[in-house]
């Protein structure tokens, strides 16, 4: 599904990613862990195509296609989803309206018929139950005035509605209380499927109690320095990042 080869990227003059190699297959859940400023969020942004993140070396193939050559919207339409660490508030743009436009842009890209308002509403209501999203938030502007937890739920809701092939979730667990973490974890688990890959980027292992990964990678200073399985995450939890060099 996703093949990252020797990826180098910088922000401004500063090299942040210094040679990432990572292969993710359909059906897998990968966790990328690491200390602050190790490059985890940069990796997520580079995959989604954020401007001002310059790829200086390497390549990324998504389902065999050159991901880095695509615009952000084409990446999304091809099936890449980024769950933001800090979801953006968009005053004046209704949440449901926004999601409907996004989904229909993706459907159009695949030659599918666009959903009308009624069809979309049925879909979004079903998905909203998955993340226990209060209905009144659906009619509000995107993320405007949402609590931290509500914003993260909204990210998972968008993922559920857009149904991507690859979801990269950047610190989706940060700032959540235990109840919200359980709901978000449940939402992510419900999205696990044989056809979909999920990459969870996180500083802490606690989300991984709910979303058990198949693979765990440790990112330090722009490189993956260790890969393993669930146990690696637990080790990091008890010993911290200091022992890995």
């Amino acid at each position: 599904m996703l093949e990252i080869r020797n990826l180098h990227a910088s922000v401004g003059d500063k090299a942040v990613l210094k040679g990432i190699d990572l292969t993710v297959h359909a059906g897998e859940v990968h966790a990328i862990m690491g200390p602050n400023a190790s490059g985890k969020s940069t990796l997520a942004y580079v995959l989604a195509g954020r401007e001002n993140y310059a790829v200086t070396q390497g390549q990324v193939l998504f389902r065999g296609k050159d991901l880095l050559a695509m615009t952000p919207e084409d990446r999304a339409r091809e099936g890449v989803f980024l769950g933001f660490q800090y979801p953006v508030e968009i005053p004046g743009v209704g949440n449901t309206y926004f999601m409907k436009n996004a989904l229909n842009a993706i459907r159009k890209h695949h030659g599918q018929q666009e959903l009308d308002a009624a069809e979309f509403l049925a879909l979004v209501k079903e998905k909203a139950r998955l993340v226990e999203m209060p209905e009144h938030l659906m009619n509000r502007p995107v993320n405007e005035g949402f609590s931290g937890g509500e914003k993260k739920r909204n990210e998972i809701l968008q993922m559920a509605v857009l149904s991507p092939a690859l979801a990269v979730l950047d610190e989706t667990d940060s700032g959540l209380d235990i109840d919200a973490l359980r709901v978000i974890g449940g939402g992510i688990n419900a999205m696990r499927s044989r056809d979909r890959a999920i990459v969870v980027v996180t500083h802490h292992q606690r989300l991984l109690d709910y979303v058990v990964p198949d693979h765990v990678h440790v990112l330090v200073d722009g490189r993956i320095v260790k890969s393993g399985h669930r146990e690696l995450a637990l080790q990091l939890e008890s010993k911290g990042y200091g022992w890995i060099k």
Partner: protein
Amino acid sequence: MKDTYLAQFEKSKGGALADLRRRAIDRFAALGFPTGREEEWRFTDVGPIAETAFAAPNGADASRLADFAKGPLRACQFTFIDGRFEPSLSSLKLPKSVAAGSLASFLAEDPKRVEPHLARHASFEKNTFAALNTAFVRDGVFLHLPRGVKIDEPVHLLFLSAADGTPVVSHPRVLVIAEEGAQATIVESYLGPAGGTYFTNAVTEIVAREAAVIDYYKVQRESPKAYHVATVMAHLGRHAALTSHSISLGAALARNDIGAVLDGEGADVTLNGLYEASASQIVDHHTSIDHAKPHGTSRELYKGILNGKARGVFDGRIVVRPDAQKTNAVQTNKNLLLSKDALVNTKPQLEINANDVKCKHGATIGQLDRDMLFYMRSRGLGNDDARRLLVHAFASEIIDEVKVDAIRTQLGGCLHILSS
């Protein structure tokens, strides 16, 4: 081309309002066109208006413009072509007690109804375009609502320009008097065929007596080659309320002077505006809110969207007179620049001469938010669509306040300039 107007005046002088018109043309002759040295005209060059010999209209074929008159507000509509009332495209459905009709017919048949009110509020002492309009006042709308009358249907004043050949000038004039407790919604639309060069020089006067409520909309969608100058002056009595929306989308150059005098205790004014300009359009709003009596409230929000090499001007003035204690006034101007060559000059001003008041003002100039754009694109929305949604979102703060469904719907569809 001042002389062109003086010559036109000599051919049309006399008749009703002869004295008023004479005084106005003399004032115009003395003031001349703004040169740009005047503070009020610093950022807006009216050279193209001053240098074009706009002719007096010579009668246009109404049938050619019939489609323009078939909009959703046609139920109660006064239609004008080049400033002249066109009965065949009008439908005056109003309560019998309301004195309403073309200004020309009132001036011909019952000038005494008009004379005491006309030109009492839109002063032409310093406003050369108002002087010019007054000098050529011939036709327009006279609407006098008696005490307590409420008109439910919006009254649509549709000013069409034929633009069929020679550039012409029209001087539409609107006079609305709402007696005590009367209530109405007035919509002025200015339209012309794309590509036509003409000059609309309009003046509207609104009098809202005690507790009268006027909801006023001005929707300017002139041809991109047209020139549009308008003065709107409202006078409010005790507890009267005026809501004004100035929507400016068309014209090569559009200048609006919009003012309200709160001349009775507890009067309430909302002045909103939405302007959108692209290419090399110039759109200029000068507003004035004069708090003359205590306990008045005013809210003012103007929002501008500028693309290409367009230029926006906002000059908003709030005056609180010594007598106007307990005034509450808020004024905001927000601008969205969509290109690096677009420009806006904004100048909010407060002049407070009373000590127990709440007043604040502010202005912003910004660009589309990059984080928002990326967020939307990362969900699959195309760059243009994302920009369009954000521009709509910016404008929606004004659009959502519009109470006339037809205008709200139309605005949703015509904010079109966006992605460059």
